[in-house]
């Protein structure tokens, strides 16, 4: 099999799940006739018909609300946000209605809300968002943010099969930039499991999505300096694989978290608290955060570069941490 893009992995996951299970439907803006703004649903309408591939008005609240209603009759809807930034438009429907549904009245809402997120493509302040932490703070969601085509396909399949609402973020910088050969058989990647992308002993770099690749690049540069970094891809932010994080930090005794989300209140802050609670005596240095600036995502390439973490910033921070 030739290698496939991240984008194609998403399309294949939806296609295969819809082919295998008539409960799976797709609803969103321009997902049908147009095949999705990024062509992630190309060919699905022709194959599965308009009852299962549903083009909607520009109404994010109605999209996720209707997906939730469909799930109450036993369907497994996938709701697409054309850009994940627009998930803010349906914040109430997600956080008040859908997230609380099972806790309050025992009504599972097995829906997946997915869409292109993240910056680095000069999308500007309304097409570059990393919204994961808005929802991580809301009990009731699972939150998935893959970094490779293999994981994107396997995690999306697990998300569709999960009985809970899952927010599935697809970093658009990765859509066409990385390719990977993936198995032809039906595989799934379990939610809540991190993976060690590179083994090391001097310090742990925790990351996910596009920043995973930045971290690996930095780790290569660090290796040339004699610093052996372990790089862990979190893959799922909720549930967070605490076990994998703690195991690595107990080995390396130093931890650096790299995320593209803005710094204050990012996942690094949460991980920092977990390490203080559970691995205080294992730490030989401060927890270091490399994250985006606490600003909206700026448009100009020079500004966006200043805003985003990159391999150089990770390298510098890691080198500093290694001195402890």
């Amino acid at each position: 099999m030739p290698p496939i893009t991240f984008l194609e992995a998403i399309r294949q996951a939806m296609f295969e799940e819809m082919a295998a299970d008539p409960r799976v439907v797709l609803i969103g803006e321009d997902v049908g006739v147009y095949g999705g703004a990024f062509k992630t649903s190309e060919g699905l309408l022709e194959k599965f018909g308009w009852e299962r591939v549903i083009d909607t008005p520009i109404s994010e609240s109605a999209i996720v609300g209707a997906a939730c209603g469909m799930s109450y009759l036993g369907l497994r809807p996938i709701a697409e946000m054309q850009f994940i930034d627009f998930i803010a438009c349906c914040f109430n429907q997600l956080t008040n209605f859908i997230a609380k549904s099972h806790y309050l009245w025992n009504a599972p809402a097995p829906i997946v809300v997915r869409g292109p997120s993240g910056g680095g493509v000069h999308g500007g302040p309304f097409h570059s968002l990393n919204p994961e932490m808005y929802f991580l703070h809301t009990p009731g969601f699972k939150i998935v943010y893959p970094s490779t085509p293999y994981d994107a396909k396997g995690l999306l399949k697990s998300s569709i099969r999960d009985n809970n609402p899952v927010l599935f973020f697809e970093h658009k910088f990765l859509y066409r930039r990385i390719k990977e050969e993936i198995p032809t058989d039906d595989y799934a990647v379990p939610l809540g499991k991190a993976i060690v992308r590179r083994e090391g002993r001097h310090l742990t770099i925790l990351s996910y999505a596009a920043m995973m690749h930045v971290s690996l690049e930095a780790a290569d540069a660090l290796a040339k300096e004699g610093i052996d970094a372990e790089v862990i891809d979190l893959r799922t932010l909720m549930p967070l694989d605490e076990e994998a994080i703690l195991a690595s930090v107990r080995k390396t005794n130093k931890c650096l978290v790299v995320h593209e989300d803005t710094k204050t209140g990012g996942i690094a802050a949460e991980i920092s608290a977990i390490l203080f609670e559970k691995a205080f005596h294992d730490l030989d240095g401060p927890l270091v955060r490399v994250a985006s600036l606490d600003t909206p995502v700026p448009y100009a390439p020079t500004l966006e570069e200043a805003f985003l973490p990159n391999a150089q910033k990770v390298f510098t921070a890691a080198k500093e941490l290694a001195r402890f």
Partner: protein
Amino acid sequence: MPVSETPARTEKLSRQQYLDLYYYMRLNREVEDTMTRLFRQNKIVGGLYASLGQEAISVGTAYALEKRDWMAPMIRNIGALLVKGVPPRDIFTQHMAKYTSPTKGKDGTSHFGDLENLHIVSPISMLGDLIPVMTGVAMAGRYLGQKIVAMTWIGDGGSSTGVFHEGLNLAASQKAALVLVLENNLWAYSTPVRRQVPLENLADRAKAYGISSYIVDGNDVVAVYTTAKEAVERARAGDGPILIEAKTFRRRGHAQHDPAEYVPKDQRAHWEKRDPISLYEEFLTREKLLDSKGKKEIENRISTLLEQDREFAENSPMPPPETAKEGVYCTGPECHDLQPKWERPIDELLPPKSSVEPVWNVDGFGRGVSSAGGIAPIHFGDVPVAAVAPEKDPAPVRIPAKPQTSPAKKSVAPKKPAKKAGR
């Protein structure tokens, strides 16, 4: 809008149906009266929201639904819950936050539902959210071949929310079998309807969605029921969503704590004289459908039931504290895996096969040919078409064009197409 002070008799209802409507309205009011007493005894944990004077709407609309149909009430639609089959004990235990309540004390008031048996979706406090959810219910029902109708309610206040618009517009564009009952009780907390909406009739909102609407006297249970019945059957038959505006008045405050002194006295007096239960009793007596003996029997039946259920609720325990952390996620054996009830052949859907014709099919889409027969520009209209028209078919047509059934207009100027871009 029917203007008669008492309902008119219609052949559409059997004697039993007339009496059922009476029973449920009385039950609705007695349940709320019982709860008012419990509230004054400090036995209701949170707020209490009354539907006094609006019982005919809850009961009359819900009575038009069949068992297979779905509903999502608002907080005041206790009568609708009762009609759908919720026992009064569930309403008492909910308000008293008991472990025996449908939500096991996780939420109060009418905030509970039942997916598997009664087909009730729980409301939340954010008004309007139920409209897209119930649109989804109707869409899923159609996909599964179930021929169900989804009904939900909104107030004059809630009709100004953004999601009211999003939901109703999606329902209209999907032709979903949704019946939306708009209870115009003239007050959104302390704000009168004229300060919320510059419309005499809120049913006029339906025009914006291209859907049908009705206006009905919300204090006339027979009018409400016959209107709702017609709407439900039309929605079931595929007419798309229908909006019913029921004109009424909220006789209590927003909740128990609110004396509603902002309501003009003459307005209150007018509506006090139009109590839906009194009006209906007059009608039933006049039509010889109910005598004092029959009335007494119904009252006894209700008081026995409510006495039992109130006792049950009062004697029920509060939820154990350790259950607070349970149930955020649906996991393990506790999670009921809801399976769809297919009422159409599944082989229509699996294995996958070529699509049903999309309803929005446009002749010539993507080929530079308009449905009106001319050349549709696929670029900005300020450049001559011939100058940029590709020599070959530019884009593969992914959807086979369906022949137009209606004659296309010849004189329509090609519209300037929107540029496809991120929003």
